[in-house]
């Protein structure tokens, strides 16, 4: 549909209107021109005629007057007496007449003039005789002249009448022109106005249609279709707009499809990354805890290693002590054996003594009365010897037993020494192993720390990923929002679900309440729970405050944060706990201690969102 197409276009309509107008104008112009031409033309001939007629009349009148005067002067001078002949010359008049007639023959003289001319010519012919010789002819001549003058006078009168008529006809033409102009111009103006009104109306309708259509497009409604599909420029605009709309619609539909896919992908990505993030967070926490636990274990193993080493030392000392004891027992055994050996000598000596005492008592009996006292001594010696012998025998038995026992204990000790040696060896092995473990656990610990660091970094990255994916979701959301500005289908059956963002529930829950400190007590209110929600004193206000403080450089220490008195807390919060609460008078660290029992009134309302498990 190019602009070269010739149809019922606006320009042609406008041109048609203009042609109408021009036509009327030209018609008017022609009427005026015709009128003016007529006037001019009649003027021109009229002027000539008038001039000629005037000249004719004037010249003839002058000539006739002159002739008449000549005639009269001749009469007066020569005392006209019947037969006297007067000469006069009428040729000049004839000449004038002929001349004028000649001139006028070119002109279309008015009828009255034409009619008058032969009469004048006749009169002039009668005047033409050049002599007057009697009163009668003079009178005739004079009569002729008078007739001529009368004729001329009539002519003049008629001329005036003619002039009058002419003026009347001119003014009639003027009226005609005026009327013509008025009528034709009115018709033209009326027609062209009518035409323009019709044209403008249809144009306005078309433009309004296009405007409405483009406004609909602007307001995002792409379901509208344009009605006016005429061939004119408006129709072309509408067609172009329709094309634009279709193109826009196609593009938007594909963008919408894309964005829906992106949306789905990004919300999937988001929930995935949220899971990763929370997983990484849990992993990081777990790693953190494992690391802490491992530190504990390492500490324990270090202690064990130390203890094992010490035990090793002790075992070694004990082994040495017991070996020493065993040696001592060995020497004791030797001593006891020696004693036993020495006891047999005592036994031998007592036996010998007994034999000697028997011999002495035999000798004493031989000596009878003299030896009686000696016999008593011998008897005592014998008894002593017997006692010694029995004691020596007992000692022998005991020492034999002692030797046996000592030998046994020596044997036992020897065994024990071996065991102790083994124990000491094992303990030192344990100590060694413990030290090795200690070293290993140090290694494990440091690897674990390393692992923990990586996990923490991963957690951080996962967090970043989650945050970015949040942003991505928001971006696609806003893309979706931007597109949703456009209405693409008459009725949208499917409603795009909003992506479920993890933590949202939690934040919704948590958002409702917050702890507020007042009169030394913490209150929960629905305004704010945690600082990371909107209405916290902003960092910027804090920063500006800091900056202003830095200027002053005051030494003033900021007032410590008011914390609830512990007594109050207890009285208020634990009053129901069977009065078992100990009132603590002083608190060392004031910063974190709350001891506030959490009790939120709206907590049970949340149960509405939950149901029994199947």
């Amino acid at each position: 549909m190019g602009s070269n197409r010739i149809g019922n276009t606006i320009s042609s309509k406008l041109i048609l209107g203009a042609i109408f107008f021009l036509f009327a104008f030209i018609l008017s112009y022609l009427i005026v021109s015709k009128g003016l031409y007529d006037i001019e033309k009649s003027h021109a001939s009229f002027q000539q005629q008038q001039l000629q007629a005037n000249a004719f009349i004037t010249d003839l009148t002058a000539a006739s007057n002159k002739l008449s005067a000549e005639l009269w002067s001749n009469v007066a001078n020569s005392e006209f007496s019947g037969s006297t002949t007067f000469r006069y010359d009428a040729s000049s008049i004839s000449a004038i007449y002929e001349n004028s007639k000649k001139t006028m023959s070119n002109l279309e003289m008015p009828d009255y003039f034409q009619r008058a001319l032969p009469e004048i010519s006749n009169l002039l012919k009668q005047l033409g005789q050049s002599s007057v010789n009697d009163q009668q002819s003079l009178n005739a001549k004079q009569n002729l002249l008078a007739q001529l003058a009368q004729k001329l006078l009539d002519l003049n009168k008629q001329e005036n009448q003619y002039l009058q008529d002419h003026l009347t006809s001119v003014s009639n033409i003027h009226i005609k022109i005026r009327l013509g102009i008025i009528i034709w111009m009115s018709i033209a103006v009326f027609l062209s106005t009518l035409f323009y009104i019709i044209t403008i109306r249809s144009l306005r309708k078309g433009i309004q249609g296009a405007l409405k259509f483009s406004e609909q497009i602007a307001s995002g409604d792409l379901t509208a279709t344009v009605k006016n599909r005429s061939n004119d420029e408006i129709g072309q605009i509408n067609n172009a707009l329709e094309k634009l709309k279709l193109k826009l619609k196609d593009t938007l539909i594909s963008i919408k499809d894309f964005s829906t896919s992106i949306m789905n992908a990004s919300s999937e990505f988001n929930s995935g990354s949220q899971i990763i993030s929370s997983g990484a967070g849990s992993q990081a926490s777990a790693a953190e805890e494992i690391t802490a636990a491992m530190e504990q274990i390492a500490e324990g193993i270090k202690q064990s290693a130390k203890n094992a080493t010490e035990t090793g030392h002790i075992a070694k000392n004990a082994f040495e002590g017991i070996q020493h004891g065993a040696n001592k027992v060995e020497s004791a055994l030797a001593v006891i054996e020696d004693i036993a050996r020495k006891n047999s000598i005592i036994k031998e000596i007592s036996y010998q003594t007994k034999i000697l005492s028997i011999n002495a008592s035999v000798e004493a009996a031989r000596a009878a009365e003299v030896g009686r006292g000696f016999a008593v001594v011998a008897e005592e010696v014998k008894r002593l010897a017997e006692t010694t012998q029995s004691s020596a025998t007992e000692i022998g038995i005991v020492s034999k037993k002692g030797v046996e026992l000592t030998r046994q204990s020596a044997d036992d000790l020897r065994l024990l020494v071996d065991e102790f040696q083994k124990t000491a060896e094992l303990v030192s092995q344990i100590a060694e192993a413990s030290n090795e473990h200690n070293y290993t656990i140090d290694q494990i610990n440091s690897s674990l720390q390393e692992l923990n660091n990586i996990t923490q970094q991963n957690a951080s990255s996962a967090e970043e990923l989650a945050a970015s994916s949040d942003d991505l979701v928001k971006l696609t959301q806003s893309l979706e929002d931007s597109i949703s500005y456009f209405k693409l289908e008459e009725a949208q059956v499917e409603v795009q679900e909003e992506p479920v963002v993890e933590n949202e529930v939690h934040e919704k829950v948590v958002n409702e309440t917050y702890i507020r400190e007042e009169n030394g007590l913490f209150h929960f209110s629905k305004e704010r729970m945690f600082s990371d929600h909107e209405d916290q004193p902003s960092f910027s206000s804090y920063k500006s405050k800091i900056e202003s403080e830095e200027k002053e450089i005051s030494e003033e220490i900021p007032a410590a944060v008011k914390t609830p008195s512990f007594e109050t807390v207890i009285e208020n919060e634990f009053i129901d706990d069977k009065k078992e609460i100990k009132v603590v008078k002083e608190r060392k660290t004031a910063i974190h201690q709350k001891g506030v029992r959490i009790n939120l009134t709206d907590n049970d309302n949340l149960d509405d969102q939950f149901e029994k498990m199947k």
Partner: protein
Amino acid sequence: MDYNETVNIYNQKLTLEEFTKVQRFMLESLGIKLSPIKIVMVNSRLIKRLKKTGISNFKDYLDYAMSPEGKQSGEFECMIDELTTHKTEFFREPEHFNLLKDRILLNYKAESFKPFKIWSAGCSTGEEAYTMGMILSEFQEGNPYFDFNIYATDISNSSVMKAFRAIYNKETIKTIDQKLVKKYFLISKDITENKIRVVKSLREKVHFSILNLVDDYFFQNDSLDVIFCRNTLIYFDDESKRKVVNKLIEKIKPGGYLFVGLSETISQYSKAISQVSPSVYVKIN
């Protein structure tokens, strides 16, 4: 926030000086020890707060969080939330719960109808406390005269709030016995939510508070039957650990039990306890 700003924040690195500040603060006010290698952890955890607050560097953030404004706005607590580890799950280290069920409860003789008192010290998001609740409720069914109170405390505001709300992801109860799950959990009506919640009857049995274990506690001496303080002490320095352990022991009844994490040993800190099983201690009469 602009994507570039986000990237910029994630590229921030904690300087040694800033880390030392955090380290000192954690030790002095929370008794939590951060070894130098934890700089990575602190870095990655605090970046989350930087993102949330939109502060572009660590120095400004730390100054702000520790300022009175930061304390007022709650940023201070959020920072602590991030810096502490909140690892927990239902029936974590099940040996302990078996011991509670099979040994402690079976031998428990109620004195003058006082309720059995159990404290989850360092409860994090509450899974441990609710696990105790399930065990004790089950026991109560067979013993109508038995009653119990569960106390649960943690330093982290947000953790305690989460515990109080008792709303968890469905995955967290995967390992729990189906019978218990049906009895003690509700599921979200909205299937897409994938959330579960502890039933009201069980929630009512658990009393949550915010508490720093280094501070003084509100329990009376010799008043608690059992304390679970598992995998909490591992974050403390030695001195704080000793202090906390002794305070915990003070609160337990003679013959009462103290549970610590399976990797922990506390016999070196107190003579008033004896080990009955790895990481389980009884208070000597």
